[in-house]
């Protein structure tokens, strides 16, 4: 009897590779990939423009002067190119804003997540989020025409353009961002963690402060980072209400231009393309970008450090 040689059995048609389906899947994957890369490319494009334009600026102005001089007057006859006054303005207004937004935003988040009844939460949250929809230019005039006069009643020496009023209103503007993101983080803490705390005889408040908040730390930090980025990058409020005069000061009772306010001021003026003044806004923009980038990195590190593992 002849032995039949071993052979691969024939593959039935149903099990054969489906070339058409694989092709379509591949196309879909590529489309998705491009959508995902779009934001990345735009970011890289922005960085490219910032760097090339700013490098023209740094051919004329030394980096040392840029980083150490305490005067910023690129549009004057006697030009100085020290970024410090703009940085101090940005940091001061942001600091005031965060002093308002972080405590109130966190407390609001704790209330909404842990104390408010379902009904209250569903009616308070939309109102809070309505604040996000108000155009920032409205907040700017609100500061100039309402908040600053109010502050001047308390302190008559306060100039019309000051960082305190701008910072306070900016803080109010940021509250909903912090409250909303922090509340989501706290809501995400699993119920069994809370039950463990209540079962030990803890009160609602003890549970919120000692268990839920630490468990949500990473998300709460993310909320703060978002708030910081908003504060550092905020433009209209400070451009309208904090003043346009660069001045190296950390005193919120004075007026001072921020990086963003300076960029608005120059971008709306009629400086010739390619002039040093024109290029200076890219140098300032780069500092702003690096500042935000730095906060984001710090935030990322903090979030990793406190990543939730429940």
């Amino acid at each position, binding site marked *: 009897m002849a032995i039949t040689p071993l052979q691969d059995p024939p593959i039935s048609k149903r099990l054969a590779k489906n070339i058409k389906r694989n092709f379509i899947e591949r196309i879909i994957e590529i489309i998705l990939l491009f959508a995902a890369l779009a934001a990345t490319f735009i970011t890289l494009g922005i960085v490219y423009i910032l760097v090339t334009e700013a490098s023209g600026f740094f051919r004329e102005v030394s980096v040392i002067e840029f980083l150490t001089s305490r005067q910023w007057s690129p549009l004057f006859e006697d030009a100085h190119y020290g970024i410090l006054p703009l940085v101090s303005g940005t940091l001061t207004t942001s600091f005031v804003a965060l002093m308002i937004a972080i405590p109130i935003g966190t407390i609001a988040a704790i209330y909404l997540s842990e104390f408010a009844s379902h009904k209250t939460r569903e009616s308070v949250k939309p109102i809070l989020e309505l604040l996000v929809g108000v155009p920032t230019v409205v907040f700017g005039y609100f500061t100039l025409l309402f908040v600053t006069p109010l502050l001047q009643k308390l302190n008559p020496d306060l100039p019309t353009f000051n960082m305190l009023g701008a910072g306070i209103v900016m803080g109010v503007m940021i509250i909903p961002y912090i409250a909303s993101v922090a509340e989501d983080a706290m809501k995400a803490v699993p119920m*069994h963690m809370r*039950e*463990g*705390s209540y*079962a030990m*005889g803890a009160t609602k408040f003890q549970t919120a402060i*000692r*268990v839920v908040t630490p468990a949500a730390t990473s998300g709460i930090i993310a909320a703060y980072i978002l708030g910081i980025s908003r504060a550092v990058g905020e433009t209209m409020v400070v451009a309208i209400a904090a003043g346009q005069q660069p001045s190296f000061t950390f005193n919120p009772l004075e007026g001072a231009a921020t990086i963003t306010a300076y960029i608005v001021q120059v971008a709306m003026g009629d400086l010739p393309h390619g002039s040093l003044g024109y290029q200076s806004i890219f140098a300032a923009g780069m500092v702003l970008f690096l500042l935000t980038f730095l906060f984001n990195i710090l935030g990322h590190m903090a979030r990793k450090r406190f990543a939730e593992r429940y």
Partner: protein
Amino acid sequence: MSENKLNIKAEAKNLNFFYANGTKALKNVSLPVYENKITALIGPSGCGKSTFLRCFNRMHDLYPGNRYEGQILLHPDNTNVLGKGVDPIEVRMRISMVFQKPNPFPKSIYENVAYGLRVRGERSKSAVDDKVEEALKGASLWNEVKSRLQDLAFNLSGGQQQRLCIARALATDPEIMLFDEPTSALDPIATVNIEELMSGLKNKLSILVVTHNMQQAARISDYTAYMYLGEMIEFDATDKIFTNPSRKETEDYITGKFG
């Protein structure tokens, strides 16, 4: 079994329980919890055994709309745990609980055990130190963690986390400890550890444990209650339930005819 002195530590009397959606989850349930004994609640999923357990420390109060009817009396003072004027926080200080899934807090091992003392306002560091050590020893965890008390509790294994939760519950000297399927998320070795631990703990306190594992009930408990569809079908000494149950339904369940 030496049962020369058998005290009732707590007893449920004609307990009905309604969830917020109106479901009647417990129907006229009565049960004694004997002092220094382990009482096991068995029954198929959804029979109300966890619901019943969670009445003892008023966990249902955390969710609005739930309603109790009837009594759970806590002896020797005869307090009705479910009474209108009774503070659930006070109840939870006397009756502690260990959950199905280990749920340590996002804190150090030390702070997890100290939690109950902290919420009670204990300030003295030496008193907290002593209690933490005592509780960790009571939960046979001390030797494994004494050199790293400041480590995050999440770094422990699942079985160690569950023993940590037991230590946490022990630290405040509860009179009764409730266990809600304490080993269902654990491997067999960790399960044995927890079972041995529970058997040792009954010298100090009374234990009520929900388990869906009948062998576990047979191994560790002194008394067993069989529940079905929100009703208490049979309650007796564990030996009796597993060898000679009086009710046909109980026999069907423990012999595996259903459930």
